[in-house]
């Protein structure tokens, strides 16, 4: 009785996945976070600020592009790992089935030779 209830509790408590939207945001936040990054100091004087705005805008554009490229590479990497995990699952099941087949053939051959013996072949 105890084991039955335990089985049922285990089945009920199988892990659930978060929403896709949350997963996406989680990945983006965790990967973008870089602990210990030093805060930038103010380096420019008042007269150099207009130029600084252009520089800042250009840098921001490059950063956005870089972040986009990085996210793309990260997605590719996640996909690569996921596909590798899939390949391993398929390989594991293929090997299992191969060995199950060995057992099956042995049992089948034994049954065939027993039948032959009984029929006097």
């Amino acid at each position: 009785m105890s084991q039955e209830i335990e089985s049922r509790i285990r089945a009920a408590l199988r892990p659930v996945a978060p929403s896709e939207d949350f997963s996406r945001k989680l990945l983006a936040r965790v990967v973008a976070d870089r602990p210990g990054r030093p805060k930038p100091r103010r380096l420019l004087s008042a007269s150099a600020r207009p130029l600084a705005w252009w520089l800042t805008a250009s840098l921001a554009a490059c950063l956005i592009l870089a972040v986009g490229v990085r996210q793309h590479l990260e997605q590719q990497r996640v996909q690569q790992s996921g596909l590798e995990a899939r390949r391993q699952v398929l390989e594991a099941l293929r090997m299992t089935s191969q060995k199950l087949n060995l057992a099956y053939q042995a049992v089948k051959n034994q049954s065939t030779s027993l039948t032959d013996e009984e029929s006097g072949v």
Partner: protein
Amino acid sequence: MNGGALDLLDDELARARAGERAALAVLVQAHQRAVYSLALRMLGTRDLAEDLTQDVFMQLNGNLTAIESNKHLGFWLRRVTTNRAIDQLRRRSRVQMTSLEDEQAFFSAEDDADPLLQRHLRDLLSDLSPPARAVLLLRYQEDLDPTDIAQMLDMPINTVKSHLKRSLETMREKTLGMQSARCEDSST
């Protein structure tokens, strides 16, 4: 796959420790389901679970160098998730378990789902103290041994066993109560 062992996530962990963000993303993908499920069933609502899940992985980011293997990572994530959830619950007087619209997200929607048992389980979880709740989840959701649970929660092993015993007895009484009600219905 020739020559030595191939543990995919150990490899990713090594890369993540070396600073590869893509590898970190792989680890988050692989472990988020377990962390989120623990957080959800400890805290009771999706919003709180999502916040805690994010906090745990952000904390991981700063502690990667201390993680030695994927197995250690799994242990670390579960320990941090449950301990942080216990702390949060202790600061609140009573946890609000899920609203009806979130109920479907609380349990996995499998073909063999038992809605009555799920309801009893949800009631049990909300009645349990935070540490007892953590023990139940680590045992039956995460399949940990009582020894591992004791180490993870820094709790004496007899306390772990006692929590499990009482939880199972409560579940048995609830499910037998269900059965008894059915018998009485059928006999009338």
